[in-house]
Every structure is written in C-alpha cells, then in structure tokens.
C-alpha cells in the first residue's frame, strides 16, 4: 500500500466522520457506554478474584470462645490447641484487644461504636495458624469440638459464599456484555451503512474504473475502527477516574477492604478496553459492508 493510498484512506475517513456527524457521535457514544460497563464488570470480577485468592491462601483460623469461659480455662485450651497436628502458632486475643483492633480498622468511622456505651460485645478469641492452607478446614472442624469454643471461622468459609456471588456477577456480567456488544455492533454497522449509502455513486464509479474490493472496503473498515477507538478512549478515561474515585473512597471508609492498586492495573484495563473497542469497530463495519456494499 503506497503512502499516496494511505493518505487517501485517511482523508476519506475524516471526510466521512464529518459528513455523518451526529451518527458518528452516537456510535462513538454507544461504544463508550458499552465499554465503560464492560470495564466496570471486568474490574469488579478481577477484584473479586483477587479477594478469593487472598482468602484461599490464608492459613489463619479465628477461634471465638464462649462468653462464660474463664481465662484460666482458656490458657488450658491454648496448650491443647498448640498440641494439635499441623498447628504452627496460637495467639490469645483478649476481648479488649479485639475491640482496640476493631476501632483501628474502622478509622474515621469509630464514632459508630459510641452507641455501644463502653460495653464490649466481642468475645475472647485465639488466632490459630496452620502450616498449609489445605489443613484449615479440618483443623477448624476439630477445634469447634473443644469445650468452650463457640465457633472457628476461616477465610475459605467466607469464600464459599463469595464464590456464589462472583459466579452470579460473572454470568450476569457476561450476559450484559453480550447484549452491549451486539448493540454496539448494530449501531456501528448502521452508521457505516449510512456512509456506504451516502457514497454509493462513488463506489459505483470506483468499481467501473477497476478499484479492488479491498480498496473500496478499507476506508469503511478504518472508519469503524476509528469510531471504536474514540469510544474506547472516552470509556477508558471515565473508567480510570471512576476507579480512582472508588479506591480513594474505600480507603477513607473501609480501609481493610483491599482493592487492586491502580497501577499497573488500570493500564491493563485501558489496553483491553481500547483493543476491544477497535475490534468491535472493525467487526461492525465489516459486517455492514458485506451486507450492503456487495462489491
């Protein structure tokens, strides 16, 4: 392809985007909205995956004791726990310390606890570390059988519920993305169809003088790609701002809830969104040319 031809294609695309002004804007807007929603789901799913991973690799069991269990009995229990197979470390956490930690984690929100009026609803507990994540489940089950143990909680427990939720979000997100992708393809191909229609005379002449099918198609495919690209740029910018906003908000209010750090995460998301936009643009225009150009 000569420079001359490339120049010609670029001129054609600009010309055409201008000619279909509001349709182009509508297409770019649709691409942007679709990709924004896609990006939000992508980031949500990735964050949830990270959380599941983090919990799956935990070796910690929180052992909550009965309210009326005495500190002396607790010391005996500590000895028994330490003797268990696979247990690496046992730390006693008195209820006062648990409260302090809780206040710390709440940060700015700790005024919420004023309602409790200095009473402490938290129980005494043990932090039990096992050697390997696979041992957590059996160990917890055995610990719950001990006298004075109210419950033994561990991350994987929570994870099982979380897994149901992530699966739901994934299925819902996937369905939504399919619908959005179809809508985007539809509007892009419609815009391109308008372009093709507006230029049918030109196309006819091109065919008479011997332009190849690909030469005729290229400007339209490019136009689709450019629309996809512009839409994805808008989506990326908004996605980045949104994620930064959410991260900052969560850091202020729920500091213990760890999100994937912005860098380089947002760069990957941007890349996926931009490439996705261009692919949608290319497919949308190719489909409409096939249908309407008949070259």
């Amino acid at each position, binding site marked *: 392809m000569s420079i*001359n031809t490339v120049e010609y294609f670029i001129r054609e695309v600009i010309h055409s985007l201008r000619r279909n002004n509001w349709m182009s804007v509508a297409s770019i807007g649709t691409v942007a909205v679709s990709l924004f929603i896609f990006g939000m789901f992508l980031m949500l799913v990735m964050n949830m995956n990270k959380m599941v991973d983090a919990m799956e690799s935990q070796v910690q069991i929180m052992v909550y004791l009965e309210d009326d269990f005495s500190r002396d009995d607790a010391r005996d229990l500590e000895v028994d726990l330490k003797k268990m197979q696979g247990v690496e470390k046992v730390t006693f956490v008195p209820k006062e310390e648990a409260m302090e930690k809780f206040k710390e984690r709440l940060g700015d929100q700790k005024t919420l606890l004023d309602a409790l009026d200095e009473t402490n609803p938290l129980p005494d507990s043990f932090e039990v570390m096992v050697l390997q994540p696979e041992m957590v489940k059996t160990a917890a089950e055995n610990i719950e059988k001990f006298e004075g143990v109210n419950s033994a909680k561990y991350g994987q427990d929570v994870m099982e519920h979380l897994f149901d939720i992530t699966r739901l979000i994934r299925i819902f997100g996937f369905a939504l993305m399919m619908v959005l992708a179809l809508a985007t393809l539809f509007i892009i191909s419609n815009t391109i169809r308008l372009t093709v229609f507006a230029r049918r005379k030109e196309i006819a002449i091109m065919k008479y003088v011997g332009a*190849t099918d690909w030469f005729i198609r290229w400007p339209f495919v490019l136009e689709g790609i450019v629309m996809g690209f512009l839409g994805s740029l808008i989506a990326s910018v908004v996605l980045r701002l949104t994620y930064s906003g959410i991260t900052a908000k969560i850091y202020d209010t729920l500091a213990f809830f760890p999100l994937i750090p912005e860098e380089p995460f947002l760069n990957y998301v941007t890349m996926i969104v931009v490439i996705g936009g261009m692919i949608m643009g290319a497919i949308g225009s190719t489909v409409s040319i096939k249908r309407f150009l008949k070259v």
Partner: protein
Amino acid sequence: MIHMNDVMKVYDNGAIALNHINVDIKKGEFVFLVGPSGAGKSTFIKMLFREVLPSSGILTVNGRDIIHMSNKDVPYLRRSLGVIFQDYRLLPDKTVYENIAFAMQVIEAPRRMMQRNVNNVLDIVGLRDKYKCFPNQLSGGEQQRVAIARAIVNNPAIVIADEPTGNLDPETSWGIMDIFKNINASGTTIVMATHDKTIVDAMQKRVIAIEHGEIVRDEARGGYGYEH
C-alpha cells in the same frame, strides 16, 4: 479484442435480452451498436465489463474469459476498459481534475504519473482551462468530456460507451464524436451503443444492428439503417 460465440443473456425475470450473439471485434475498430429501445444494446455493453454475466456461450474481452473469470479478477479486466454512460456519472463534490484523478487514485497509480496523465487527457478533451470547475458549473457536453477523460486516463485498450450523446444536442454531439475519433485514431478500440442516426450515417464505421436480442445486420461501413 472482443469475441462472442453464441452468447445468450436471460435476466432473472425470464426476459431474454440477447440470443445467439456471434461477434468478433478487432483491435482499433470503431463499432456502433444500433437498434430500437429494448433491443439489448445496453445488455451487450454491460457484459463487456462484466456488470452483467452472460447466461451461456463464450465471451472473451482482451483475452479474458468473462464467464469463467473469478470475481477478484474483475477489477483488472475493468482497468483495461474505459466506460462512458449517457448520464456522465461524475462526482458532484469533486472538481474536474479530481474526478479524473480519482480513476487513477483508486487503482493506486503512482502519483507522479497522475498529474501527467490527467493533464494529457484534459488536453485531449479540450478542458484544460476548466480543471478547477465543479460538474454543476459545466454544460452537459463538457461534463461528458470529463467522463471521457476519466475513461481514458488509465490508457484502456477498449472504450465502451452507452449512448454517450443521448442527452446532448446535435452540435455538442459532434464535438464529442470528434473526441472519440481522435481516441480511435490513436489505436483504441471503441464500442458505442447509440440512437443517433445522423452520427452513425456520417461516420461510416462498422454497424451492428440488434433487434429483439439478435443481431440482424453487421456491416463494415454502414449507416443507421432505420427511419428512427
């Protein structure tokens, strides 16, 4: 250059537009296709650049087998032909120069050739000083000259014209015919469908008369032969 052997064209609706057509046209010939409206002249013309596919028979143009050629070879067939229509088919938002250059642009001709060829054909059709005009600033005759210039800018071996003077007054038509004569004189084969009795009679070139889809007369130096 053009060879037809028992060519037949039946349209999808069952209309038989051409039947038992046998024709040989040699390099450098000037051929008129005449006949009443609906005789099949346009169908004949369209088959030559494969706008219409013959239903049966053998048709070769410039050594290419029109019936069996693949779709992707069609552009290369058309680069060896120049096509001219009754309604000019110029692009209204392009200047005279751009309309002609367009035909070179879209076949990716080298740019340095472009300017030379376009100026050259502008001279041939006598429109050098109007190269900046838009089609709506030109008379019908001038617009047809631009269309001719566009058709010959890539140096085709054959020029095909379907009633090129159909929309023009006699005076203007003569000017157009002079251009065709000059193009033919430089060795280009010309096939022209026309209704124009005066022109055909005056030119004394080969005349192929078609009626109801069949060739009824083929004379080396003929007249129009109908009372109109």
